[in-house]
């Protein structure tokens, strides 16, 4: 159980590293939000699942599960609102011809 938790935590950290890489490397706003919203939610989910496996069935792991639910609700909605507002205020998506 401990080893499974460790594996999940390392996987979650890897997803977070990929998120940070995407935030720095991707060319425009929309693809950056895309990277952050998807892989960071998955990263936090895996991290908290690993912590739950470490902890076992206690009150603390119930709180971890609650954090997981809140993040899984709030993160995609925030990304949705950011992209919607950017699109409606005239931010254009990146095209392949323009180099950045």
């Amino acid at each position, binding site marked *: 159980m401990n080893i499974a938790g460790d594996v999940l935590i390392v996987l979650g950290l890897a997803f977070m590293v990929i998120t940070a890489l995407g935030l720095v490397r991707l060319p425009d706003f929309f693809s950056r939000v895309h990277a952050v919203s998807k892989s960071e939610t998955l990263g936090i989910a895996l991290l908290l699942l690993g912590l739950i496996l470490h902890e076992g069935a206690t009150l603390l792991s119930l709180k971890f599960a609650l954090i997981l639910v809140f993040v899984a609700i709030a993160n995609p*909605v925030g990304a949705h609102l950011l992209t919607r507002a950017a699109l409606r205020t005239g931010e254009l998506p990146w095209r392949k011809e323009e180099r950045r």
Partner: protein
Amino acid sequence: MNDRYDSVILHFIARVVMAPLIIVFGLYVLLHGELSPGGGFQAGAIVAAALLLVRLALGNRQAALRIPQGLLIWLACIGLGIYMFGGILPLILGANFLDYAPIPVEWYNQFAGEHRTPRAMGILIIEVGVFLGVVAVLVLIYDLIAGSSRQ
């Protein structure tokens, strides 16, 4: 929020999913105040955050949970009154101000089937007062600032 940035997803999440969950969590923080990190001020800030989330997401005019300002002022005063009650009750029962030891709790323990000590009971009374005051004043501050910028 004006119509240009309106979103059904935001409305549903803020009003139906998030605000009730946040309010329930705030009440949990309030009722566990003497046992775990938390208390009246923190719980009040959390519940006020839920009310402000609905106001920010739906706009002040459409907010379903809109409370008139007179009621908010009354709530803050009632919270202060509960705090004073929790402070003066031990004074009447023959102890110092805010010294909870002589508060009678046997009737409550028989009624609710718990084993709450007088001090825990006194702290709970105080924290409910602080909670009401903080919720009312935080929402009132937001309403006054947002209301003045709208005109």
